[in-house]
C-alpha cells in the first residue's frame, strides 16, 4: 500500500470510530424518550351498582406518566353486564383502524362510523373490515369495585 492509501484508511477508520462512539447512547436516548406510558397496575373504573344498562359507557380518570409530566387524563370504556352478572370491559376503539365506536341501543350493535364495522354486544365482529373482535381489558373485581389492567387482544 502506498502512503496515499494508508492515509485514506486512517480517515475512514477515524470517521467510523466517531460514529461508533455515538450510536449506542443515541439509540438508548431515543428509545428511552419514547417509552412513556401508564403505570403498570389496575385502575378502578366503577362500582357494579353504578352500571345501569346492559351496555354502559363509563368514564374514569387515570394518572399517567407523559414524558416529563405526570398528569390525569380522562378515559372511557364500554362495559357490558351480562344477564348472569359477569362483566366485560371493551377497549373503546375499533380493531380496524382505531376509530371510536359507539353503542347503538336500537340495533343492539357496536357501530364504528369510519368504515362501517359492526360488533355484537359480546364484541364479536358482525360486519365490515375489522380483523378481530373488540379488544377487552384485563379485569379485577374486589367486592363491588371493577378495576381494569392491560388490554387483551382477541
Amino acid at each position, binding site marked *: 500500500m502506498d502512503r496515499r492509501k494508508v*492515509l485514506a484508511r*486512517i*480517515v475512514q477508520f*477515524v470517521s467510523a470510530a466517531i460514529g461508533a462512539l455515538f450510536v449506542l447512547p443515541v439509540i*438508548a436516548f431515543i428509545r428511552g424518550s419514547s417509552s412513556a406510558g401508564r403505570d403498570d397496575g389496575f385502575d378502578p373504573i366503577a362500582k357494579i351498582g353504578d352500571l345501569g344498562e346492559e351496555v354502559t359507557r363509563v368514564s374514569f380518570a387515570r394518572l399517567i*406518566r407523559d*414524558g*416529563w409530566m405526570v398528569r390525569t387524563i380522562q378515559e372511557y370504556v364500554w362495559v357490558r353486564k351480562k344477564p348472569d352478572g359477569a362483566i366485560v370491559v371493551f377497549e373503546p376503539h375499533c380493531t380496524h383502524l382505531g376509530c371510536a365506536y359507539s353503542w347503538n341501543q336500537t340495533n343492539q350493535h357496536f357501530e364504528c362510523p369510519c368504515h362501517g364495522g359492526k360488533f355484537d354486544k359480546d364484541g364479536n365482529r358482525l360486519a365490515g373490515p375489522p380483523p378481530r373482535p373488540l379488544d377487552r381489558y384485563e379485569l379485577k373485581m374486589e367486592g363491588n369495585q371493577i378495576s381494569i389492567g392491560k388490554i387483551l387482544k382477541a
Partner: protein
Amino acid sequence: MWKWLESRIRLQSTWRHFLEERLPERTGWPHVFGSILLALIGLQFLTGLLLSFVYSASPPGAYPSVRYLMEQLPGGAWLRSLHYWGASFIIVFVGLHLIRTFLYAAYRRPRELTWIAGLLLLLCILAFGQTGYLLPWDQRSYWGTAVTLRIIETVPMLGPKIASLIRGGASLGALALSRFYAIHVVALPMITTLLVIAHLALLRRYGITAPWSRTGEEGIRKIPFYPYQMTRDSIGILIVFLMLFWLAGQLYAPLDAPADPTDTTFVPRPDWYFLFLFQLLRYFEGKWEIIGTFVLPSIAILALFLLPFMDRNPRRELRYRPVAMLILLVSVSAWGWLTYSAVDEMPKPRAGQRPPGILPPRAERIKRPSEVGGLYVLKQKCFSCHSMTEMGSRLNLQTLVRNRFPTGATWFERHFQENGIQTTLGDREVEELMSVLRLVAGNRPDLLYTIPPKARFGAHFFYNSSCGSCHKIDGQGGEHPRVTAPDLTLRLLRSKEWHIKHIHDAQSVVPKSKMPPFFHYEGFEYDALAEYILYLHT
C-alpha cells in the same frame, strides 16, 4: 440505482471534486481548526436535534422537561452535557481559528469576504450561546438573561425598543422563552448553514493562504486535500471529540433550581466566554456604563470587520507586522486578564457554608434513612453546643470530627458526661449520628442543608421504626431474611395522601399488597414518613 443517482445529480463527482481541492504543500496542523469547527458545529446540530425531542419551550414545561432529560432518560445527561460543553469547545476553536487566520494575514485581498463570512459566523455562535442559555429556565439562565437584556437596554436610542422586542413584552416570560427557542433552533441554524456554505465556497474559490514563505503564493506546489490534509483533520477531530465526550461524561451541564423571578439573592454569572464583558462592566459606572456595554464591544467588532481594508502592510511574515502583533497581544491579554480577574473575584463556597437551599437532582441527594434521619438527631442532640460553621471561638463540627471521629455509643456517653449534658442515645440514634457525622467530615457537608426539614424527621422515624428491615433505600436496609419489600428509591407516581393511606393500610390502595397495616402511628408521623418518601421520589 446508484448509477442513476450519479447520472442525475453527480453526487460522487461532486464529493470527489470537494476532496480533490488543491492545497499548498506545506499546509499542516495549524489548518485543522476550521475542520474541527465544522465537525463541532455538526455535533451541536445533532445533539441539539436530540435535545429538542424532549425539550418543551414554555415556562411551566421547560425546567421539568430538562430535568426529566437529565435524570430519567438513558444518555440524556450526557447528550445535554455534550451540547453544553460543545458550545464552549466551539468558542475555544473559533478563537484559535481566528488567531491563526490573523497570524497568517489570511484575511487580506482577495479573501476579505471569507473573513467577513467567518466573522458573521462568530456573531451567530455568540447568539447561539446567548439564546441557548435561557432555555433550561433555571435560576442561572433566567437571571443571566435578565442581565443581558438590561445591557441591551443601555444602547442609546434603540436599546429599550430592541430589548422589549426580544422579550416580547415588558417582562421576561413565556413569549421571551418561545422567541429564544425559535431563534436558537430555527433562525440561527439556517443562517449558520448558509454562512458556512458561503465561507467554504469562498475558501474553495480563493484557496487557503499558504504558510509564510519567501517565494510568494504563486510558486508553491499543491497537493490534494484528500487524503493528506484530511488525515490531519480527522485525527484532530477525533482527539477533540474524545476530549469532549470524556468531559461530558465527567462534568454534567449544570441545572440550577427552577427560575424564580421573585428571588432577590441570586447573583447571575455568564458563561466563561462572556466573563470578560461581565468584568469590564465593573470598571464603568453610572453614565460611563455605556462604554463597557456598548462602545467598546462595538469598536472591537467593527475593527475586526474593517481589518482587511485597513491593513495595508504588504508583508505577511510576523516580524514585519509589529503593530498587528502588538494589537493581538494586547487584545488576548486583556481578554485573559479580565476573565482571570472575574474568576478570581468569584465568591468561593466554603466548607460547611449554607448553599442557597436548592434541592439537588435526585441522583445526588442524600437518601439513606440513617443519614437523612441523622441530621434530625444531630439537630436535637448536638446543635445546642456545636454548629456547622465557625461561631466565635468555637470550632465548626467538620474540623472537630475530622480531628477526632466518635467511636461509638460509649464515646458519646462519655462525651455527654464530660460536658454535663443530660441526655441519652438509643442504639439506632448512635448509628444515625455516626452516619451523618461521616457526611459532615466528608467533602460536601453543605448537601445536608438541602434536605427538607420534614423529610429529616420522616427518615429518623423510618429508621427507628424498622421500616428498613424490609425496605431498602440506596443500598441501606432490607435485611429481613424472608421478606423483600420494594426498594423505595424506585420512583412512584403517588400523592402524599396516597402514601399516608398506603402506610396506614396498604391493602386499601394496593389490594394485593403484602405490606402489613400500621395503624398505631400519630398523624404527624404518617405525614413525616410520606414527606420522606416524596423527597426520595420527586
